[in-house]
């Protein structure tokens, strides 16, 4: 049984359906990347899993339990953390406060996790007392990932960690993603930056206009001409 099973979900914004039946699986310990161009529905898949845009049809199961209609709070409590598109750090809070909020549902001691995040991202340790809104995009991305890690998630959802970030930092972030995966956290990643995203993953899905059109091992998927075609045209 996979850790996460998404079965034929549909989700809409108002009158417009963004997902027309999407299915995917993520096994425990895996890194899975979903790629696709803008507006294909990548973010919506993640939002449906974390309960922000609940699916109105289909089912989402986490560790065997159906979570389709749970509230975001209950989903976080079950061990799914979501690093949202555009990072969404709390701009007028310090780095430390952002990290503390990541562990909002935990009542135990945070010191160890805090140290761990600072280990992953030494840059954050330097800026511990700085307001998140004043940091660069890359630093905010680090913070958003660190914040999600503070909940000790079993599954980490990441939405375009490379978006709008200088290439050097993108590499730095992907290195850390690898580290997080090696430590045993399962990751579902969504990327527009296809090769970058697939390079970090074991398996991949390609999504186009609300449908999964392709799936397979990440290394073969990256070479598939269809991917290039989808992005850059034939």
């Amino acid at each position, binding site marked *: 049984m996979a850790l996460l099973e998404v079965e034929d979900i549909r989700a809409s914004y108002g009158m417009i359906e963004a997902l027309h039946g999407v299915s995917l699986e993520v096994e425990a310990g895996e890194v899975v990347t979903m790629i696709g161009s803008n507006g294909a529905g990548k973010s919506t898949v993640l939002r449906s899993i974390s309960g922000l845009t609940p699916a109105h049809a289909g089912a989402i199961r986490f560790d065997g339990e159906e979570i389709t209609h749970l509230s975001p709070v209950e989903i976080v409590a079950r061990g799914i953390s979501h690093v949202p598109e555009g990072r969404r750090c709390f701009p007028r809070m310090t780095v430390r406060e952002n990290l503390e909020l990541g562990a909002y549902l935990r009542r135990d001691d945070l010191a160890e996790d805090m140290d761990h995040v600072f280990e992953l991202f030494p840059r954050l340790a330097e800026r511990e007392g700085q307001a998140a809104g004043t940091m660069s995009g890359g630093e905010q991305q680090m913070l958003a990932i660190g914040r999600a890690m503070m909940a000790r998630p079993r599954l980490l959802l990441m939405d375009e960690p490379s978006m709008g970030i200088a*290439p050097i930092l993108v590499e730095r972030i992907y290195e850390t993603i690898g580290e997080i995966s090696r430590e045993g956290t399962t990751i579902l990643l969504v990327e527009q930056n296809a090769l970058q995203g697939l390079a970090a993953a074991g398996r991949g899905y390609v999504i186009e206009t609300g449908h999964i059109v392709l799936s397979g091992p990440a290394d073969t998927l990256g070479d598939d001409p269809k991917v290039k075609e989808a992005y850059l045209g034939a």
Partner: protein
Amino acid sequence: MSAGPEKAAAPKPAPEVPIRAEGLTKKFGGLTAVSDVDLELRAGEIAAIIGPNGAGKTTFFNMLTGLYRPTSGRIRRGQRDITRARPDQITALGVARTFQNIRLFPTMTARQNVMIGRHSRMRAGIFGSIFRPPWVRNEEREVWERAAEELRFVGLKPELLDRPSTALSYGDQRRVEIARALASDPEILLLDEPTAGMDPRESGELADFVLRIREERKLSILLIEHDMKVVMGISDRVTVLDHGELIAEGDPAAVREDPKVIEAYLGRGATA
């Protein structure tokens, strides 16, 4: 006021460069969304702006249409400096647009939406609206018919004309949005991801339609687009933005082979 309305002025001969951005920059707080971009749209061409998510394309559009005020740089419409002009003034100068996430007026019918697009070319003021003299009646009737005409032009089925816009299919809503933009008799049409959310067949149809618009309406089109098939198929020139900066410009084929572009899209090592 007492004189009858003039007929909508015949389109003036298009100036050499209908719209031009010079060193356009927009900062939000510490973030630079668009950085020192020069771009011009030539008369009668279809130009595309492409780039990954968050590259600053829509911000650029919003500056051209007056929704955002540039932090620095200039925008010229022909000979005129419109850097600080209001959106309605820019529309009146013949610039019309659509939105990435369709922004039709939800409770209005398709026809009413298109009639709004005609607003800047109408003259009825408060007294005209209240007393409705003959010229206002004529104006209303003309706009009423013109709206139907535009909707026919974009291919909306006649029976959908007076349906609320929210009751229309996604593709029809896109069509209505374009009709609404065309209703203002623009010389320049800005399309923000016109194929977003369409399947390949619909996208192809739309691409053909954009070409037809240019043919029949003799206007210049600037579009933001993600669907590379569409971009490659119809644009005369492509400009690539990444991180708010212009990284490449040229004809589609050349841009597609530009390593900087491939890297921006597919990531490092893609060209290796």
